[in-house]
């Protein structure tokens, strides 16, 4: 067990709390929509005709929210299965896309848009043999570093970048950003940056600032040795 293993529980709690909070909103909308239909039906048969549009809208809302709920449950289920094996072969692009969907709520609360970048090169999928949960922790910590410096209306782009022949994860913070020196200081002095350094080290990788791009570069070995 490395020191990052202990932090996995807290990470799991944070992500699960975010998704289940969203599930509660889904259920709240379904409850109100079905309640509205029930209210109308209980008034009188004439009310059903009068409020036809409200009934139709409620049915559409319920259908949409069920879809949203299915999506959330799928994400949560996939996330829960990331603990199935200690070490596993992971498609890096898949891992990034999964993390982005899990982190959408956190971005929304910060009024920040989160986007996945498509790989800048053709070829077979980039795979890593590593600890899946910790990889997600590292990706999430890098997003949190961007949250530290971004204000409302900002955007984060995350994707795979080929750097000196090696694959890396590139996280770019966009928007109304502080000057370069302030950007560097705000990130590098933050707790999130410290957390990111620790997780990257647990994965035998590294995280460094890409000042010119207002971004962060995460590098990981193709296969973890420990």
């Amino acid at each position, binding site marked *: 067990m490395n020191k990052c293993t202990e932090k996995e529980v807290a990470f799991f709690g944070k992500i699960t*709390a975010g998704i*289940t*909070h969203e599930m*509660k*909103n889904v*259920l*709240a*909308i*379904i*409850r*109100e*929509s079905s*309640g*509205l239909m029930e*209210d*109308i039906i209980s*008034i009188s048969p004439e009310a059903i005709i009068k409020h036809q549009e*409200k009934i139709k809208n*409620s049915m559409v*809302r319920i259908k*949409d*929210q069920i879809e949203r709920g299915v999506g959330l449950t799928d994400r949560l289920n996939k996330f829960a299965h990331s603990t199935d094996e200690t070490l596993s072969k992971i498609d890096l692009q898949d891992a990034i896309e999964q993390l982005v969907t899990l982190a959408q709520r956190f971005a*929304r*609360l*910060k*009024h920040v848009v989160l986007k996945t970048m498509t790989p800048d090169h053709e070829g077979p999928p980039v795979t890593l043999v590593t600890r899946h949960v910790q990889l997600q922790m590292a990706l999430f910590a890098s997003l949190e570093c961007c949250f530290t410096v971004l204000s*409302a209306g900002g955007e984060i782009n995350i994707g795979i970048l080929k750097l000196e022949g090696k694959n890396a994860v590139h996280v770019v913070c966009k928007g109304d950003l502080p000057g370069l020196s302030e950007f560097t200081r705000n990130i590098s002095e933050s707790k999130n940056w410290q957390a990111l350094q620790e997780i990257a080290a647990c994965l035998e990788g590294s995280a460094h600032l890409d000042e010119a791009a207002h971004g962060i570069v995460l590098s990981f070995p193709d296969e973890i040795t420990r």
Partner: protein
Amino acid sequence: MENLKILLVDDEEEFVTTLAERLELRGLQARAALNGEDALHMIEADTPQIVILDVMMPGLGGLEVLKRIKARHSQIPVILLTGRGSTKEGIKGMQLGAFDYLMKPLDIEELIKKMQEAIKSQP
């Protein structure tokens, strides 16, 4: 309770508009705000008799909105909505002056009962 002016504040548009429709069917005057900033403007423009406020919202969070409402309109009762499993935020809200809190998903009859209690408790 008839014609009671209610302001509902929640960033989940479909939740808040449907809840407003249900309250209107019961003869109440419900308006919806989708964020804290809009809610504060709406309160200044047309002061409601009660505010139903979600705790977790982007931008200005529910507890900050509560503080600002209480600073300028201490007489308006505020009922908080929380989606969290724990009661921590609800209790914190009550310490800041909220009348009470309810958990999501909401039971409309419970909300109405809570609003009646809040209005009755007014000096």
